[in-house]
């Protein structure tokens, strides 16, 4: 089975966000990057699927700067077979649709049976690229998958977590799955894997520019939290606290 896992490098969780001088995004200086949390689950599911099926190839694909090689190699160390980096100087300002178009063009060439993406990237928090990719590729898609079973005859069973509960789907290959927390527990890149990754190919491809349809006007940090207020002490303060929570904070 040929499987593609799409990944994104995102600012590391501990990053102290600062707004860049142009006021339109994150100040890149001093930012450390990492593989987006849900994409790690996507890569793990791609590798496990190949292991379960017993044969095939796992290709990791990303659109990003040349430095994104680091995250790709990490995926190779975990067990992916090869990586493709769509080198995009404008990656940090790219919108979801143009990202999806560029990825779709490459996936179209690769013609995999299955595509995995994370359910959302932890930086922009859009949850858009996965479903857009499926639409552009004309594939069946289930989002927020927490359990996936490969059936015989090119069929899949997917369980999706929604607000209503667990939804069960059946779909046919080729398909696209976006991965939710709980689908699997991603493995560590073992030291032997890290050494093996050095021998695996990372192909860099220059991308044709696709125009963005949306652009950030201004980016702002959330306002600082207002200082708290002590409404009283002990049990006697409970009515005042409830009153404040209802009227002022409007949270109960």
């Amino acid at each position: 089975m040929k499987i593609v896992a799409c990944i994104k490098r995102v600012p590391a969780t501990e990053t102290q966000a600062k707004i860049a001088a142009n006021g339109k995004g994150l100040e890149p200086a001093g930012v450390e990057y990492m593989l987006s949390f849900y994409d790690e689950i996507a890569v793990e599911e791609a590798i496990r699927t190949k292991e379960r099926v017993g044969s095939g190839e796992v290709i990791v694909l990303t659109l990003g700067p040349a430095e994104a090689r680091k995250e790709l190699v990490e995926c190779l160390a975990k067990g992916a077979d090869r990586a493709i980096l769509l080198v995009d100087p404008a990656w940090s300002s790219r919108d979801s649709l143009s990202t999806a178009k560029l990825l779709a063009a490459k996936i179209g060439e690769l013609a995999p049976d299955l595509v995995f993406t994370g359910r959302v990237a932890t930086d922009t928090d859009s949850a858009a690229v996965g479903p857009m990719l499926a639409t552009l590729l004309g594939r069946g898609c289930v989002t927020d998958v927490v359990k996936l079973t490969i059936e015989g005859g090119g069929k899949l069973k997917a369980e999706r977590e929604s607000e209503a509960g667990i939804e069960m789907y059946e779909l046919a290959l080729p398909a696209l799955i976006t991965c939710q927390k709980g689908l699997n527990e991603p493995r560590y890149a073992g030291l032997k894997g890290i050494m093996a990754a050095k021998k695996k190919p990372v192909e860099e491809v220059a991308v044709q520019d696709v125009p963005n349809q949306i652009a950030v006007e201004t980016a702002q940090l959330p306002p600082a939290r207002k200082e708290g207020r002590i409404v009283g002490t002990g049990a006697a303060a409970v009515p005042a606290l409830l009153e404040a929570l209802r009227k002022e904070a409007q949270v109960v």
Partner: protein
Amino acid sequence: MQPYKALDYLDLDSEFSQDERMVRDTVRAWVSDRFLPVVTEHFEAGTFPHHLTPELAELGVFGPNLPEEYGCAGLNNVAYGLICQELERGDSGLRSYVSVQGSLVMYPIFAWGSDEQKKHWLPKLAAGKAIGSFGLTEPDFGSNPGGMASRARKDGDSWILNGRKMWITNGTIADVSVVWARAEDGIRGFLVEKGMPGFSAPEQKHKWSLRASVTSELVLEDVRVKEATHMLPKAKGLKCPLGCLTQARYGIAWGALGAALACFDEALSYSKSRIVFDKPLAAYQIPQKKLADMGTQITLGQLMALRMGRLKDEGRLQPHHVNMGKRNNVHIALEIARTCRDMLGANGISLEYQVGRHMTNLESVYTYEGTHDIHTLAIGEALTGIPAYRVG
């Protein structure tokens, strides 16, 4: 608890290759996710978390700088050093467990064993399916291992071993112990297996240091081993066990930095958040001086470890280099742990924080694998050409 942030004052990160950083970050993440949540209870109980051995093997930390044909990762020595650093950031007992397996058991089998011994033991030890220990130190011979009282006597195609070894990490749980004993033609190395008649390895209890590590005595009473399978054919003379120790001490020079970094990180974040007389502890001059001194010492230690690693990868690292690295880095780590313990005030003595655990562990690390004083004399000998170890 705040996420761990390792001090990197001089941007030494950029001196490491991408693979070296990836190795470090993998082990760092594993220690944070899997080891730190359980270390306190094991330290208190005086046990090693054995359930983690398969995960350590899966990560590939046993003998990671040995070749791939034996199931090892074939990493360079800088990566090995970084592994030691990250493991000891967790606990000196964890790093000891891994150091002994790799540098003191797998390394001598790799360097001086027969092909059959290598094929039999190395893949098992790399996979954590067998655990090893290293028996050199004796109750009356620590700094002077050449004086050892353990004896090996040849008897036909076998050897008869007699003696006692002390302070042996992993001894009780070891499937195979590399035991050094004096034969007629000098010191020889033997592979003694668990359960061999006449061999026992009682655990040494009541330690207040390295509590999350098994320490044992090895007792050999007429233990009969076959020469062909259980003697290391190429290990002759004291230089062999000392050569193992140079490997392990190299790792300790890195490991001690991990313990120092853990303490520093904890004391730094504590002093920024702890309010004393209406402002953070970190806003006072005395804590700042302590932090400045410790940050400088860690940075110097990192430079020394990195330089040693690059020399080792070029095949140019000499034992007297390692004497300096082990001596300095363990010394500064112990001083830093004590200072950080002080900076945490009463909290510093609680196992809810890491500093006290590291501080007591480092007292052992200061003494084992060549005491601080013996390393001082080794450096003295390298500088002057005069050995000052002996009377007369």
